[in-house]
């Protein structure tokens, strides 16, 4: 999928080491503009490192990483405890020089679409885990970057909240998929409904990957390398019990189990 489309992220034979530990080995990965790619792998296989490379927080020791500007959403919401939900969401705008009032005015219209209406003035401690993740997601969107890197965004949530958030994100991704992929959203106002975004989702939850992504990339245990790519040509919205989802999940799990256990640890 997507070889004829513009590539938003191109990782070419990238290797990243930390001291004597090789986190990523010879990883090659492409994500087309507007595509949703999920990267699955066991804990410690360098998934987070891959996202940090794409976001420009790290540089590869070997190989190259070229990517459109990318925003990172981490497993922890990292909301500022002293700021209201609205101010937290509007943080990227403030950082880019907008005044408090201007930033709030730009972020406020997006709250309803995220199920956060009425909680604009609440501090993070007053919000549920799912709401905090939604504020964090909104903040990532308002960064206005064409690529979204989601690092285990729902792993810290309980099972029910996670299922809710997956359904919610699936719906949001579908909304974007039906809009013109050629215009990546740069304006904050469009962030709530918005146009197509390229999403690189990292997770250890194979089901989550199959539910959300257009394509699932499987990494081996450390040092992470790509061991399989599974296209997910299934209609949306998807449910965990759909036969297609079940088959693909089983296939991905098979690959994960049979992946060679790396010697270097």
């Amino acid at each position, binding site marked *: 999928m997507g070889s004829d489309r513009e590539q938003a992220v191109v990782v070419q034979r990238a290797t990243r080491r930390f001291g004597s530990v090789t986190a990523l080995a010879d990883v090659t990965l492409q994500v087309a503009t507007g595509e949703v790619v999920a990267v699955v792998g066991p804990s410690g296989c360098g998934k987070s490192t891959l996202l940090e490379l794409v*976001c420009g927080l790290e540089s590869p020791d070997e190989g190259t990483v070229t990517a459109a500007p990318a925003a990172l959403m981490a497993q922890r919401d*990292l909301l*500022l*405890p002293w700021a209201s939900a609205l101010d937290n969401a509007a*943080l990227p705008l403030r950082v880019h020089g907008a005044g408090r009032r201007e930033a709030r005015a730009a972020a406020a219209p997006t709250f309803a679409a995220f199920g956060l209406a009425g909680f604009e003035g609440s501090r993070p401690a007053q919000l549920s885990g799912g709401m905090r993740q939604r504020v964090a997601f909104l903040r990532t969107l308002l960064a206005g970057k064409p690529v979204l890197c989601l690092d285990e965004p729902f792993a810290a949530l309980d099972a029910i909240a996670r299922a809710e958030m997956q359904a919610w994100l699936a719906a949001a991704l579908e909304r974007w998929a039906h809009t013109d992929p050629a215009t990546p959203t740069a304006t904050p106002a469009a962030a709530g409904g918005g146009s197509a975004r390229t999403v690189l989702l990292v997770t250890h939850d194979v089901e989550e990957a199959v539910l959300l992504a257009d394509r699932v990339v499987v990494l081996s245990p450390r040092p992470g390398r790509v061991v399989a790519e599974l296209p997910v040509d299934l209609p949306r919205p998807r449910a965990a019990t759909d036969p297609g989802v079940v088959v693909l999940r089983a296939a991905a799990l098979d690959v994960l189990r049979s992946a060679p256990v790396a010697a270097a640890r």
Partner: protein
Amino acid sequence: MMALVLFAGLLGAWQLYADLGNVDDLILPAPAQIATALWDDRALLWHNLLVTAQEVALGILAALVLGLACAAALHFSRVLRHATYPLLVASQAVPVVVIAPLLIVWLGFGIAPKIAIVALVCFFPIVVTTLDALSRVDPDTLKLMRTLDASRWTAFRFAEAPAALPAALSGAKIAVAIAVIGAVFAEYAGSSDGLGHLILQSIPQLETARAWAAVVVLAAFAVALFYALDLVQRRLVPWTSTERPL
């Protein structure tokens, strides 16, 4: 409430000891005598409290301004931090009793050396607590700021400075108690008024109850200042106060 009960108990024990223990009034006056002195000398005590309060308030303010600026500078520059940290510790190790007369000689008899001495003793706890809090800011939060293209200064303004504010105010609260001691030593070293000066004068005049009354006023002032800062802390950093009621 518990504090009041404890306080009343201690006062009662003192009164009993003074009444029954056959202690000379001039050596240890009973609480009742101190209360009388508080009332009789209220104009004198009030006048001297205003002097000391001004020294303490201006001294803490100077220490806050300099301390926060210094902590920010040390946070930004690793070289500066390594170069000046020993000096900072030294500034705290210098005994106020020794330095106070020297500063009076240097800065004169007025309020300036008092402010300098109060600021000197308050500076260290403010800088150390603030610097410590700045270095403890969640690295993931700083990483987040980088992905939002925040400059070093923007990250400081939006993430680090607010995170360090509670600690800075805690440092100021610690500083309050020693600020009062600093002011008293500064007045001992040379002054014409202030509560420290009043205590120093009252003892040779055998006005022991008055000296104790001045001590009571000083203590009450320190407690009031502490709780005033506590109130400021709750207003300025309400996101932390829910976890730790005082």
